[in-house]
Structure formats: structure tokens, C-alpha cells
């Protein structure tokens, strides 16, 4: 499974990591809906670090699409909330 961290790069993760990735992703979503900036940051960082540590960076000369795309590491809680109210990080 290829996971892209937006503005950072692509990582290849094994199929065994899918469940954990899903779990962390959902945790980040509930943090962005319910909690403070700090708590969201902690949950989101956990998700990003999981991808960075479990995954292997995809070589520069590979031009394949990703299965999953994560928002940029510097996403704020407001931006993350906007993601779910439809505006999104990439308008247009």
C-alpha cells in the first residue's frame, strides 16, 4: 500500500499496517472534531510518525499513484475541520 504524506512524499507500507493506519486516522478525525489544537496535533503526529517509521520511502524515480493521501504535516485543527465541512485543503 502506497501512502502519501502531502507536501512530504510517498511511503510503502505492508498490508498488515492497514488496520493500525485506519485506527490512527480515525483517532485524528475524532480529535479534530472534539478536542483542542494540542490534542489534535498529538493524534495527527502519531498517524504521521506511524507512516514514516513503518513505511519505506518510495524511490524518486517511481511515478505511481498513492492508495491513501494524508494532509500536510503542518495542517492546523481549523484546516482539518474544514476538510470535513467540505471546503478542503485544495479548493477548486
Amino acid at each position, binding site marked *: 500500500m502506497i*501512502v502519501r504524506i502531502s*507536501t512530504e512524499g510517498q511511503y510503502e507500507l505492508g498490508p498488515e499496517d492497514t488496520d493500525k493506519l485506519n485506527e490512527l*486516522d480515525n483517532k485524528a478525525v475524532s480529535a479534530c472534531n472534539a478536542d483542542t489544537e494540542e490534542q489534535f496535533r498529538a493524534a495527527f503526529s502519531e498517524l504521521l510518525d506511524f507512516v514514516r517509521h513503518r513505511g519505506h520511502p518510495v524511490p524518486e524515480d517511481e*511515478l505511481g499513484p498513492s492508495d491513501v493521501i494524508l494532509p*500536510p504535516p503542518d495542517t492546523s485543527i481549523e484546516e482539518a475541520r474544514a476538510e470535513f465541512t467540505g471546503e478542503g485543503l*485544495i479548493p477548486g
Partner: protein
Amino acid sequence: MPGLSGRMSTIVKSKISKLLDRAEDPGETLEYSYQKQIELLQNVKKGIADVVTSKKRLQLQEENIKQQVVKLDTQARQALAAGQEDLARTALERKNVAQTELQSLDGQVAQLEQQQEQMTASEQKLRSKIEQFRSKKEVIKAQYSAAEAQVRISEAATGVGEEMADVGLAMQRAVDKTENMKARADAVGELEASGAFEDLTALGPGEDDIDRQLKQLSSTTEVDAELEKMKAELGGGAPAAAGELGAGDAAAPAEEVHGEDGVKSPPIPPAEPAQKAHEGEAH
């Protein structure tokens, strides 16, 4: 997949398909993607130039404000030496505002520097991706039959499209931040132009809007503390120096002269220190 990644993936994919739908035959898709990448690279370069310009502008403002801080400090000392405490207080209040501004400018310059680095890294990455794409598209065109090419091309184009969308996103975020910085730089420029950090001697007798704003802005306790410190430094003999205000620190050295002689004495051999020290001074 739901969650943050699901939303993000959907958005990026719709962006890519919009990008690629414009071209119909495979060869055209490849050329179109390639042209788009070149355009994007130009935008990245322009973005970097913008960041550098904003940074230079803020650095220039920093220099100006630094000079104002020195000037206001000197003016406060002069005013205090001349016994005009109110004037000294106003000068310190202005210095306080200028220093706060300076701190915030420092942070912004550092942020812009970071952005410049990030964008330069993006540019290099994009450049190498484009180079790979260029050679790949020639291989695809030459090697595959139309049916095969369609699949290969859509794969390569989607990957490249994603990469482009990603670099585009990084650029957009950098540009948004730079816009904020520019607005900030404009605001500081206006504040400067309004005379907020200006020479105190240009100040009229009554209080103007800026004075009132300054009083609200600056922390009174900080100013009080600095005023007290300055008074202590100036000591009791200050009024005598009031005639030579031009020199800025003129009042202080008069007090420190004796102290400095005392400090110079120790290197002289301990045998007859008092005598030699006095001889040195006698002219």
C-alpha cells in the same frame, strides 16, 4: 478509507482527473502533463523569488526599527538627564513598541527562511520528477501499442498528476503564508510611515492618536521599570550634563570615570600601587 486520508485522497484524485481529462489521445495526455509540469516549475521559481523579496523587505524594516530603538533610548536618557521625565517616558513607551515589533519581525524572517528552504527543496524534487517523466514519456510513446500505451500512460500520468497536485499544494500553502507576511510587512510599513517609531523631537506639544495608542500598546510596568533603571544609571549628577545632549550617553561616563581608574589599577605590581596609580593620573 474514511478519515482524514479518505477525504484528502478524494480531493486530490478529483483534482488529478480534472487535470488529465482535458487531453484525449494518449500522446496528447503525455505532452499536456509535461507542459503543466514545466509551468508548475516556473511558478515554484517565481514563488521562491517572492519569498526572498518579502524576506529582504522585512530585514530592511528590522534595520530601520533597530536604529529607532537606539535613537529612542538615547532620547530617553537625554530627556531624563534634562529632568523631563514625561518626555523620557514617552520615548521609552515608543521604544517598547518598537522592540515588540522587532521581536515579531525576527520570528517572521525565520519563518520565511524556512519557507524558502522548503520551496527550494520542492523545486529540486519537482525538477527531478519532470526529468524522469520526460524520459518515461518518450519510452512509452516508442514502445507500446496504442492499447497498452493507454494503460501505461494513465498510470504514469496519474502518478505524475498526484506529484504535481502535491507540489501545487505545497506551493499554495507557502504562497498563502507569504501573503500573510506581506500584509504584515505592509502594516509595519504604515506604522513606520505614521511616525510611531519616529524622532521624539518631531513630536508636537499635545498628545496625538499615536501617543494614545502607544500608551495602550506598551506595557506600563515595563516602561516604569526601565525608567527607574535609567534613573539609577544616571545617578544624581545628571543635570550638569544637560548641556551636551548631542552625545547621547554623555551623562553616564561622568559617573563611571572614577570606577574605571580603580579597575585599571590591579595589573600594577603590588609594591607601590597607590603611588603609581596617582602618578599615571597626574598631568
